[in-house]
C-alpha cells in the first residue's frame, strides 16, 4: 500500500479515516439488507455493502479481487437480483411478510453461531485483562506483518500454473449454471403463467 509505506502521521491519519468510513458503511449497509422491509431498498443496500467489501479488499492489498468484486458482485449479481425483484413482485407495495416464530428462530440460531465467533475474537483479550486499544491485532500489531508479496501478476501466474485445474473446473461450473438457469427460466407452452396471460 502506497499510503502505508509513506508512513507519515498525516497519511496514516487519512488512511485510518478512509478505512473507518468504508468499514462503517459496509457494516450499516449489511445490517440494512436484513432490516429493510422494502425489497428494493434491501437490494440497493446490498449494492452498497458489496461495494464496501470491494473497498475492504483494496485495504487488504487484494486489488485484483477488489476489481473482480466490483465487476462480478456489484455489476452482475446486484443487477441480477434487482431484475429478480422486478420479475417477481407485481404488487405495488414491495414488502416482505415476516412471521414472528421465524424471527425468533433466526435470532436464536444467529446468537448460537455469532456468540462463539465474538468470544474467540474478543474473549482472549478480555481474559488477559487487556484494553482493546492496546491488545495485539485490534489497532496495533506487535509484529508488523511484512509487506505481502501479493500482486496481480503473481496471482495470474498462480491461476495458470498451480491452480489451473480448479480454474478450468470453475469455468465449467459457470457454463453449466448458465445453461441450467436458462433452461429453468424459459417460458413453457403449457404453463398458464402471468406472462402467458398478458400476451
Amino acid at each position, binding site marked *: 500500500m502506497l499510503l502505508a509505506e509513506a508512513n507519515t502521521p498525516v497519511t496514516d491519519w487519512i488512511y485510518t479515516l478512509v478505512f473507518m468510513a468504508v468499514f462503517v458503511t459496509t457494516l450499516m449497509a449489511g445490517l440494512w439488507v436484513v432490516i429493510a422491509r422494502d425489497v428494493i431498498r434491501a437490494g440497493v443496500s446490498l449494492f452498497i455493502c458489496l461495494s464496501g467489501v470491494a473497498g475492504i479488499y483494496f485495504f487488504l492489498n487484494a486489488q485484483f479481487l477488489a476489481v473482480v468484486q466490483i465487476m462480478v458482485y456489484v455489476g452482475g*449479481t446486484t443487477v441480477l437480483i434487482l431484475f429478480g425483484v422486478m420479475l417477481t413482485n407485481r404488487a405495488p407495495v414491495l414488502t416482505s411478510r415476516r412471521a414472528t416464530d421465524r424471527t425468533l428462530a433466526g435470532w436464536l440460531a444467529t446468537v448460537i453461531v455469532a456468540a462463539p465467533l465474538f468470544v474467540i475474537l474478543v474473549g482472549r483479550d478480555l481474559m488477559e485483562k487487556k484494553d482493546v486499544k492496546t491488545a495485539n491485532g485490534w489497532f496495533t500489531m506487535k509484529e508488523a506483518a511484512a509487506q505481502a508479496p501479493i500482486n496481480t501478476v503473481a496471482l495470474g501466474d498462480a491461476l495458470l500454473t498451480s491452480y489451473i485445474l480448479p480454474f478450468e473446473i470453475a469455468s465449467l461450473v459457470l457454463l453449466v449454471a448458465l445453461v441450467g438457469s436458462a433452461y429453468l427460466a424459459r417460458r413453457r407452452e403449457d404453463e398458464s403463467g402471468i406472462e402467458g396471460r398478458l400476451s
Partner: protein
Amino acid sequence: MLEPKIVFALAAVLFSVGLYGVLSRGNLVLLLMSLELMLNAANVALVGVARYWAGMGGAADDFSRAHSGQFFTLMVMAVAAAEVGVGLAIIVAVFRRKHTSAADLATELKH
C-alpha cells in the same frame, strides 16, 4: 495499517447478519440477498487471512501462502455467481407457477 481483528470482526458481523436474514426473511429474493451477504463475509475473512498469513516468516513458501486465500475467494465468487443465476431462475420459475415469491408457499415436496 489495517489490523486483522477488525477485518475478522467485520466478517463475523456480516455473517451473523446474513444468517439471521436467511432464517427470518420470507421473501425468496431477500433470502438470496442474505445468502450473498454470508458468502461475502466468508470472502472477507479469507482475504484477511491471506493478507496476514503472507507476511509471517518463511521465504520459500510465501508465494503459495499469499495466494491460496485470494484464490479461494475467486472460486467462491465463481460459485456464488453460478448460484445466484440458478437461484433466480428457480425463483422466477416458482413465481410463474404460483404467482408469489414467498418461501413458505412452495411446499409441494413437503408431506
